[in-house]
């Protein structure tokens, strides 16, 4: 993956030299052309095209923004409801992610979506303790985190 990005930057520099015009815009155009070249030649290269990960990363960001707005609306409803009819609690959410980076990313995303707040990790880092502002169904809350964020993060890193 690192080699591919290096190759892509190299193509971008070639493009700048060919154009004989040293601007950021030209570099970006060259980078884009290199990206397309790598995409076209992906069958001949004996490594996996890294664009798939870039695509997965953008998908993760879009999912995150969508969840952020959705969860904000939920919390606003709770704040403005005349009777505070909430049942908060701390749930242990198990995770299949391996590296520290992935788990940190997951905990950060859980914290940033309103209504959930990651509080602590277990010793081996396989369980995140999450404070929910309103629990309707414990299993469903865990399943939602698994289906949305964990799956999207796995697509980026695996």
């Amino acid at each position: 993956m690192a080699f591919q990005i290096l190759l892509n930057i190299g193509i971008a520099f070639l493009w700048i030299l060919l154009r004989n015009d040293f601007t950021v815009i030209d570099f970006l155009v060259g980078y884009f052309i290199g990206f397309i070249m790598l995409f076209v030649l992906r069958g001949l290269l004996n490594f996996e095209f890294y664009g798939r990960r870039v695509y997965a990363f953008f998908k993760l960001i879009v999912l995150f923004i969508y969840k952020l707005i959705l969860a904000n609306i939920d919390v606003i409803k709770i704040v403005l409801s005349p009777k505070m009819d909430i049942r908060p609690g701390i749930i242990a959410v198990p995770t299949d992610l391996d590296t520290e980076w992935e788990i940190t990313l997951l905990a950060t995303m859980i914290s940033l979506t309103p209504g959930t707040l990651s509080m602590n990790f277990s010793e081996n880092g396989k369980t995140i303790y999450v404070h929910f502002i309103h629990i309707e169904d414990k299993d469903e809350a865990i399943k939602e985190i698994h289906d949305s964020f964990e799956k999207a993060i796995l697509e980026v890193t695996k």
Partner: protein
Amino acid sequence: MTEIVISILILIGGGLSLLGAIGIIRFPDVYGRLHAATKSATLGVISIILGVFIFFYFIEGIFAGKLLLTILFVFLTAPVAGFMISKSAYNVGVKLWDKSLQDDLGEHIKQLDRKEKQKS
């Protein structure tokens, strides 16, 4: 047209910050208040900054990259602050609200204590 978009973004930001402040007063315990303080405020701050960025870019013609960096740093620091405050509050012994459903973290800490006692 851009003015309308800017106004909407800044109004949303101000409204969300106000709701965050109301939430801090209304929620029953430390952990609930943290939800209001770190979250609705995050989206509020971000939409205000986005509005300012669009204003400078489309009306003044300045590309203010620092504003985009601000969004990144708010995203980086808000969860860390929430994590540390809630963790230390729990370790100091601040109790959950009476109506809380369950406390898996408390059980986990009890289990760890039991294991340590067995060792010693």
